């Protein structure tokens, strides 16, 4: 599914190398977690994969089911089945959440050569998905993320994931800004979407999210590289001992 080989990335505007050769392979049905200290390049990896401006790939490659991601526009990557749940979901005043969701779903259907969903069909579909995530109808009527609480914003990300049905989901610090109850709710939403055909890359600073979304593989990232890969026990090790022992010699 998602395959990243020796990915090297620098900031476009300054001569600063952020990713220094990342290798990663997430198979269908697997949940991988990337942990690491602040500034290790975790979020950059998620942005580069989803196609945000401001980064320059200086080497390596990233493919989704064999298709080169890095040459594609963000919307083309989305249509291929890549989804990024934002660390800071964006507020869009003036665009209703329902309109936003329907526009996204129909744009992807169109890209895949499928018929667009009618307003009535979509309403039925979205209500069902929202209910499963305990999202009340009021949140669908409001402008995208405007005035949403931290928990509502993150649940809205998961709702988008649920309606867009991506193959590969990247969750960028989805636990940030959430209290325990909100985090549980979000994790439940994610777990409900775990299927055999879908891969997850969960980026997090803390282990606590991984208590709720159980990973198959845990990677530790430091200074732009994956420095250690292991099972779920690796996350517990970090929780107990911190990141110090994993840090790259340059940093230590």
């Amino acid at each position, binding site marked *: 599914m998602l395959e990243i080989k020796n990915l090297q990335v620098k900031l476009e505007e300054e001569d600063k190398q952020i990713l220094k050769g990342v290798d990663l392979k997430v198979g269908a049905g697997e949940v991988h977690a990337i942990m690491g200290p602040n500034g290790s390049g975790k979020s950059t990896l998620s942005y580069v994969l989803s196609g945000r401006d401001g980064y320059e790939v200086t080497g390596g490659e990233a493919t989704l089911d064999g298709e080169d991601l890095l040459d594609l526009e963000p919307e083309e990557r*989305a*249509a291929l089945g890549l989804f990024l749940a*934002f660390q800071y979901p964006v*507020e*869009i005043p003036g*665009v209703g959440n329902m309109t936003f969701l329907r*526009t996204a779903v129909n744009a*992807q259907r169109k890209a895949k050569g499928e018929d667009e969903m009618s307003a009535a069909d979509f309403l039925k579909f979205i209500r069902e998905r929202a209910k499963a995530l305990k999202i009340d109808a009021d949140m669908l009527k409001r402008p995208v993320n405007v005035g949403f609480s931290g928990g509502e914003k993150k649940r809205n990300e998961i709702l988008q994931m649920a309606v867009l049905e991506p193959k590969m989901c990247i969750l960028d610090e989805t636990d940030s800004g959430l209290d325990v109850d909100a985090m549980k709710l979000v994790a439940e939403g994610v777990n409900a979407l775990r299927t055999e055909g879908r891969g997850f890359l969960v980026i997090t600073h803390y282990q606590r999210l991984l208590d709720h979304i159980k990973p198959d593989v845990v990677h530790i990232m430091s200074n732009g590289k994956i420095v250690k890969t292991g099972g779920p026990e690796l996350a517990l090790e970090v929780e107990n001992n911190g990141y110090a022992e994993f840090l790259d010699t340059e940093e230590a």
Partner: protein
Amino acid sequence: MALPKVKQTATEERLAAMSLPEAPGWTGPARDAAVARVGAMGLPGRRDEYWKFTRPDTLVQAEAPRAATFEGGDEAPTFDGIDRLKVVFVDGVFDEAASDDLALEGLKIERLAEAQKSDLHWARDVYGRLEERGQSPVDRPLAALNTAFATDGILIHVSGKVTKPVHFVYHHKSETSDAMLHHCVKLEEGAELTVLESGPAAARFNNVMEVEVADTARFAHIRTQGRDHERRAATHIFTRLGTESTFKSFTMTANGVMTRNECVIELTGDDAVAHVAGAALGDGDFHHDDTVFITHDAVNCESRQVFKKVLRNGATGVFQGKILVKAGAQKTDGYQISQSLLLDGDSQFLAKPELEIYADDVACSHGSTSGAIDETALFYLRSRGVPTQQATDLLTLAFLAEAVDEIDDEALREEIVDRLRGWLERRRG
């Protein structure tokens, strides 16, 4: 004070090219007084402070500049799906065959050209009167010129709550037409009416609407100015509001090399509400000017100005908006926002927001911004699979939403949104 020579000459030339109706009836005195006002003020000149951002030349010159007509393509006629009373003008000339019968329960409606055949008329208290009140403290000579020489228009006296809107439909079929229409609306206590206007009207259009809103009456106005690009228009709305009355006006402008829309509002009764809003879209040599003057002269009134412009490829947007709060107008709630979305580096937005407050217990806020599409929001949409162009359109409509939301009626609001979306999708039609 004597007028500068250039201005005096221009004014004289224009006046010489105009002719008063042969039998003006009860409008006679108002027309004569307006001619005198124009002579004293002089027509707008390039050096006038009030015309600093908009060159008045083509609106002032004796002959209307030629303007190609335009076919709307497959776009349905504006407000076609709305049940309304239609009054049609072609190049400023009433088209009886295309119009509905001028009859509607709860109001009396007549053409100015017909009504002025008599010596007495209710509109005598409105025609040219509100325009004249609006001449202070700023001169609006093109409005006075209209009062003097308007060839026709619609007079509506509203006594009941009328749900069916009256729609002025303006067609532009001659490349050289120069139309001047003058409408008067008088709403009696508790009366209600919506007036719709649509279309380019003429190669050059000078339009005045005077609206007298009595206590507790409600008036709504929704206008689209037509997609003809070469047409020119100078429009004025003058309104005076009584106690607990409401006035709401929204204008959509797409294309047009020269549009100046002035709105002059006087809140004279306590607890009155006045909202005026506009959404304008244009590119290239598009020039669009919203000029608003709101006078608060009563207690606890609310006024709101919401103007949004989307500008592309060197287009120019202008906003001049003033709130004047007189000494006794305590508890005034005034809000003014003017914003432009510049879709490239060539376009410009010139804004002059002004507040002048003589009362000490008021809340007035104003803001003016110019900016590009929010890149973060754009990426967010694209990451969800929405192509760049579609995402940009969605964000552009979102930018315009605050102005469009000033339209209370849902069907009318949706029609306007569809038209705005259509314009964006056509990328200049």
